[in-house]
């Protein structure tokens, strides 16, 4: 007699691929399109092997026409399909920003609720691989700014697999940000693998002295920072936002109301970004619970440089998170 393991260990890349495969097997309307998703197997190898299983119609290589194929995804969604559009990096997505903002996010509203766009856009985000100033940015905040979109940021293998299925069920456009540094990360996928919510933040580690609020690629460094802080007697709660729009204020505020201190960690630039939004909400909703100013650890305001030491200096790090946490609890000036 064999016993089915209740978890499967696999990489984030494999988890996303299995999520796509699962969705395409379950629903004929689902198809994948984007640059090099087919024969190449995806710019980051996510769709490797899917062309062989599903064929060229449903694993559709596109020309380098971000606006064109994202817009085509919108039209296909309007026409009854459930497209997954892959954009190789968030920087390239700017070429399609007109379609995402002016059409996908807006259509339901400007048609008075007549046309909704059940489109899923996946894109790689983030730095850390010396890809320099046009392939490394974290523009989640751009998209989270836009009413009409749902923006999610999976940080775990489980979310990498399970968010996609739920996103495909959403009648409105969902943008999924996959941090490039996560693809090789291994993690546990509970079996049977199932869709997960795309509404709520999650407490990834409990703590009492302060709340670290983060998402996506920064979750790991926050958890590492929390370990270091614990060794120093500081108990940090770590919240993974998961969904950046709409933000799950409730989970965040419940934690901050308890710990009285918050540090927001986001790989986007500090000014006018995700971290600014979260910090502002904490100030608005938890002001009288705060025992220290809300701290932020974000990217230094420079286009991401190529040299490794400069790139690392530009990004949030465990050291910067620990320092911000210590400032929040009064251990540093």
């Amino acid at each position, binding site marked *: 007699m064999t016993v089915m393991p209740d978890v499967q260990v696999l990489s984030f890349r494999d988890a996303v691929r299995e999520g796509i495969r699962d969705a395409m097997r379950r629903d004929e309307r689902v198809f994948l399109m984007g640059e090099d998703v087919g024969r190449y197997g995806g710019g980051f190898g996510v769709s490797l092997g899917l062309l062989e299983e599903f064929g060229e119609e449903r694993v559709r290589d596109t020309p380098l026409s971000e606006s064109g194929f994202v817009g085509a995804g919108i039209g*296909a969604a309007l026409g009854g399909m459930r497209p997954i559009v892959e954009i190789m990096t968030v920087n390239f997505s700017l070429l399609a920003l007109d379609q995402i903002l002016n059409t996908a996010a807006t259509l339901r509203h400007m048609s008075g609720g007549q046309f909704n766009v059940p489109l899923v856009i996946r894109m790689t985000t983030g730095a850390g691989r010396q890809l320099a100033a046009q392939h490394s940015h974290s523009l989640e905040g751009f998209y989270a700014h836009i009413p009409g979109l749902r923006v999610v940021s999976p940080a775990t293998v489980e979310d990498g697999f399970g968010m996609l299925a739920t996103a495909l069920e959403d009648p409105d456009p969902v943008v999924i940000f996959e941090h490039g540094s996560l693809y090789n990360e291994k993690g546990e996928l509970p079996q049977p693998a199932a869709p997960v919510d795309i509404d709520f933040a999650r407490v990834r580690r409990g703590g009492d002295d302060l709340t670290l609020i983060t998402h996506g690629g920064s979750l790991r460094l926050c958890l590492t920072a929390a370990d270091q802080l614990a060794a120093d007697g500081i108990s940090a709660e770590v919240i993974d936002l998961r969904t950046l729009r709409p933000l799950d204020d409730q989970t965040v505020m419940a934690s901050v109301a308890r710990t009285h201190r918050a540090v927001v960690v986001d790989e986007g630039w500090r000014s006018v970004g995700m971290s600014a939004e979260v910090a502002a909400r904490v100030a608005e909703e938890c002001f009288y619970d705060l025992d220290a100013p809300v701290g932020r650890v974000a990217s230094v305001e420079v286009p991401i440089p190529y040299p490794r030491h400069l790139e690392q200096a530009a990004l949030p790090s465990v050291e910067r998170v620990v320092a911000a946490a210590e400032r929040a609890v009064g251990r540093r000036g």
Partner: protein
Amino acid sequence: MMADLPSLYRQMLRIRRFEERCAELYSGERIRGFVHLYIGEEAVAVGVIDRLTPDDAIVATYREHGHALARGIAMDAVMSEMYGRTQGVSHGRGGSMHLFHAPSRFYGGNAIVAGGLPLAVGLALADRMQDRERVTACFFGEGAMAEGEFHESINLAALWRLPVLFVCENNLYAMGTALARSESETNLAVKAAAYEVPSWSCDGMDVEAMSHAAERAVALVRDSGGPVFLEARTFRFRAHSMYDPDRYREREEIERWRERDPITIASTRLIERGLMDQEALDAIDADVTSEVDAAVAAAEAGTDEDVADLERHVTSGGVRP
């Protein structure tokens, strides 16, 4: 199939009278925002849409009152939309530039130049992937042909052989910029043909010519399953929008085009062919005018949306796994 000229004439006149009233209402501050009038170009929408079936889709621009009316959307609903009323075709949320109507498969009302083209490609892609034999007609001005989205979209449609009818309404001015000042190749059909898309031009001031060109184009889309490009040479008689002082066009040029007013061409032809006399034409005019009067009355009597509902129609509110 021969075009039904009296019917086409009537459709054009509905658009003309509707928009003339819009200009008046705009001056009287009943309508606000941007209003782009189609006056002079009516033959294009009327001629093409006459050749579509109810199953086909239409993607239009911000100069789309004519397309909406030609598609058969109730004038009441279009005028109410101009007023921002809840009875409007887009429930008042869109206004002049964003007319949408799901039952007619009328997909806007897209006010980003060339922004509707990828949408049309996608609608056609969905039809292709679901084995539906439908045509998506996509209207855009010649200004859109300088946009990257035109090139991306026609390339995709050609590459994937998608049933899109690209209708370029070449009225010679992209807002205030003349064609020759924005395109290196002013023969637009030649430009489109570079994508291996069957392309030709037609007289956009003659509704019968327009209808015949559209008949051929739509048939080719249906038969081949691939895209066709149609350039309609036309002219708007009024400024770009109600804000536009129209300083960039010569009076004589406008007058010259007015001599080719599509409504005059059609009415003259109706009388010449003995299909109608002046009395019958006047009766149509009176009929259309009363339709416009009724639409205005309906819009005036319409209701404004409750501010409490401001955040409606943004998202569905999501789903649970």
